[in-house]
C-alpha cells in the first residue's frame, strides 16, 4: 500500500541515539533521502561491454521547509551549519518507529523570501557516516 508523504517523519538528533517526538523537524514541505553509490568503470580496451564495480556509497538528503528558526529541529540544523558538527537525521517514510538514519553535516541553508509568499529554507546535507537504522520512541 502506498504511503502518504505528509505522514513521514524527519528527526534530527545531536547524538547517535533513537529520536523522540521532541526531535522532529517541523515545517517541512519536502524531504528527500538520497542514497547513491559511485560506479567505478573497470573495463579495459578490447572488451565488448563496459564493466563496472560498486564504488563507495553516500547519502546527501535535503530538507525544504518553511523557515522556522525557533523550531527545535531547524535550529539544530542551523547550529550544525555554524559549528560544522555532525548531526543525525532520522527518516521514517511511513511515520512508524522504524527509521533510516545517517550522520550529516549541513553544507548550507539558502533562504528565499519573495513579496507574495512565505519565507522558505532549503537545508543541504552531506553524509559523514554510513546509513543505519534507528528506532523512534
Amino acid at each position: 500500500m502506498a504511503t502518504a508523504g505528509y505522514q513521514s517523519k524527519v528527526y534530527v538528533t545531536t547524538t547517535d541515539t533513537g529520536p523522540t517526538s521532541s526531535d522532529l523537524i517541523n515545517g517541512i514541505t519536502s524531504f528527500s533521502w538520497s542514497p547513491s553509490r559511485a560506479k567505478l568503470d573497470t573495463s579495459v580496451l578490447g572488451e565488448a561491454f563496459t564493466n563496472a564495480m560498486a564504488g563507495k556509497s553516500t547519502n546527501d538528503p535535503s530538507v525544504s521547509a518553511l523557515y522556522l528558526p525557533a523550531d527545535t529541529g531547524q535550529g539544530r540544523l542551523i547550529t550544525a551549519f555554524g559549528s560544522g558538527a555532525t548531526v543525525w537525521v532520522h527518516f521514517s517514510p511511513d511515520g512508524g518507529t522504524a527509521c533510516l538514519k545517517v550522520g550529516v553535516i549541513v553544507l548550507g541553508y539558502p533562504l528565499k523570501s519573495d513579496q507574495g509568499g512565505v519565507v522558505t529554507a532549503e537545508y543541504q546535507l552531506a553524509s559523514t557516516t554510513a546509513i543505519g537504522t534507528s528506532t523512534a520512541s
Partner: protein
Amino acid sequence: MPTPDPEADVASLVATATGRTLGASLFRGKILAVGEGAPADCIFIRAHRGERNQPFVGSSQTLWGADVEVTVRGPAGDRESARATATTVLHALQKATSGGGFSGYTLALVVDGVPEDLEQDTNQCHLFAVAVTVQWMA
C-alpha cells in the same frame, strides 16, 4: 471554531479601521439589500476558500489559505464615500500584521491596487470590493 477565523478576524480589523460596528453597519456573510436588515452605508465581509492548503511532512500542522472579500456599499448616489471607505479598508488589510491587530497569520496580501468598482445596485448605492488573501499555520 478553530483559530484563526479569517472572516471574523478581517471583520474585526475592518471595524477598527473604519469605525464601524459589527451587526449595525458591518456584517459577515452575503450582501443584504437596503431595508432588509442593513442600512445603505455598510460593509459586508465574506470568506471564500483560497488556494490549496499545504500539509507538512511529519507534522500535524498545515499551511492554510483563504480569500476574504470585503464589499463596501455607500449611501445612495454617493460614489466617493463608498470609494473612500473601500480604500481605507484596502490600506488596512494590505500587509496587515500582528502588531497592527491582525495576529495569528503568516501572510495578508491585497492583490489589487484600488478597490474594484462593482457599479450601482438598484437603490443607486455604489459598491466597491476589496479581496485579501491570508495564510496561517494551524
